[in-house]
């Protein structure tokens, strides 16, 4: 192997890479919260909905969880212009990821709705709680505690797996920046090793803070490792 590693070159690009990391976080957080809103609605429709609405929510989940996020984004980026809708690569990635996350989050949240046991609600009723109090003190904390670990886990998946897909259609997030810089300086291995390191650190910080929040807010013992 006659290849000399020059990590200095890669580290010199750290400021550029960190700019990308900020976009990665933006994409991840926006797609997650957008997906969470869709998931809340989707899970409600799938659990309590009737007829076509329930079917629609089911079809949405089945379609988006069985096709690649990349193809969904391609559809928006390359397909929609044919209908005269032209969005930036960032917008396409964000919308694609949001729709994709919404489908997975629908399933996660549905598991939360289902987990509420009628006995617990009955117990709350016998204590004389009003309907609103039951939701506020029994149902919501129960759901939050049940699904928090899955939500935290999914956020990391979106942050890592999801956002990097944007690089393929030219979003300048962390992976995208690495590709941009590497095509100029040909230091692919060094750049990607450094980028991998940044991802590990970023997600570690994210997991750690999510575990702390979970502990403090919902008394969930989430694992960092």
């Amino acid at each position, binding site marked *: 192997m006659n290849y000399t590693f020059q990590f200095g070159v890669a580290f010199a690009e750290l400021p550029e890479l960190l700019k990308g990391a900020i976009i990665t976080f933006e994409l991840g957080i926006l797609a997650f919260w957008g997906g969470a809103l869709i998931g809340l609605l989707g899970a409600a429709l799938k659990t309590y909905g009737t007829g076509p609405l329930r079917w629609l929510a089911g079809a949405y989940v089945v379609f988006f969880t069985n096709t690649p996020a990349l193809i969904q984004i*391609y559809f928006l980026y390359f*397909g929609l212009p044919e209908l005269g809708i032209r969005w930036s690569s960032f917008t396409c990635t964000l919308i694609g990821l949001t729709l994709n996350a919404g489908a997975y989050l629908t399933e996660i949240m549905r598991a939360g709705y289902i987990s509420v046991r009628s006995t617990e609600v009955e117990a709350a009723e016998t204590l004389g709680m009003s309907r609103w109090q039951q939701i506020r003190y029994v149902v919501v904390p129960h759901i939050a505690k049940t699904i928090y670990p899955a939500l935290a886990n999914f956020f990391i998946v979106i942050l890592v797996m999801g956002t990097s897909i944007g690089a393929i259609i030219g979003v300048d997030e962390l*992976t995208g920046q690495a590709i941009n810089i590497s095509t100029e300086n040909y230091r692919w291995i060094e750049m990607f090793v450094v980028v*991998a390191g940044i991802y590990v650190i970023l997600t570690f910080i994210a997991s750690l803070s999510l575990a702390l929040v979970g502990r403090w807010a919902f008394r969930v013992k989430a694992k960092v490792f």
Partner: protein
Amino acid sequence: MLLLEAMGTTLAMTAIGCVLGFLIAFVIVFLRQTPGLWALPIRFLAICYVEVFRRIPFLVVIYLVLFFIRSIVSEVSLFTIAVVAICIYSTAYTADIIRGGFESVSRQQIEAARAMNFSRWQTLMNVIVPQSWPVILPPAVAFAISFIKDTALVSQVGVFELTFRGKELNNEGFSALLVFGTIAFLYFLMSYPLSRWGRWLEQRLASSPSQRSKQRLRPAYSP
């Protein structure tokens, strides 16, 4: 026909990569559970492998594998590179699934084996694996099936699989809506039936060993 061939490539590289990944993950978990002070570096490396690769995007792994392998040997097919990348990634994920499965076997079962002089390997093969595979297999299969979709990313380095074929067709002038709609549908055709089968498998395995042995004995037809 080219689309069918591309689908075949997608399925083949996912299957080969995930099966290899499963086997390597199995060894990694075994190493990770090696007792004793001397095995500390082995345990540390095994944990690092799983933790690091679960935190790196698949796309970054693909690029790393591509350029790393190409810098050592130049004559490597893109298919091989895709398989290696899938294998590295699936190893990290399945290792956690396998570890969870092994830990689901009660400590008393392992103690009983130790008291009868079973070695660590004999305990694993005779007691832990037979008791934990119903816990391990469904999520491992589910992971592999969901990974069919994620392999779309290897099109980026030019592997001739389904997504790559889609991009080619689009470049040849076919409507992107039509092309990517079709490609999405083809992924759906592979992923949906398999995920239904995975769920069926999970329900079937959720029974105890004695019930399973009866299922085996029961004739396939019944009056």
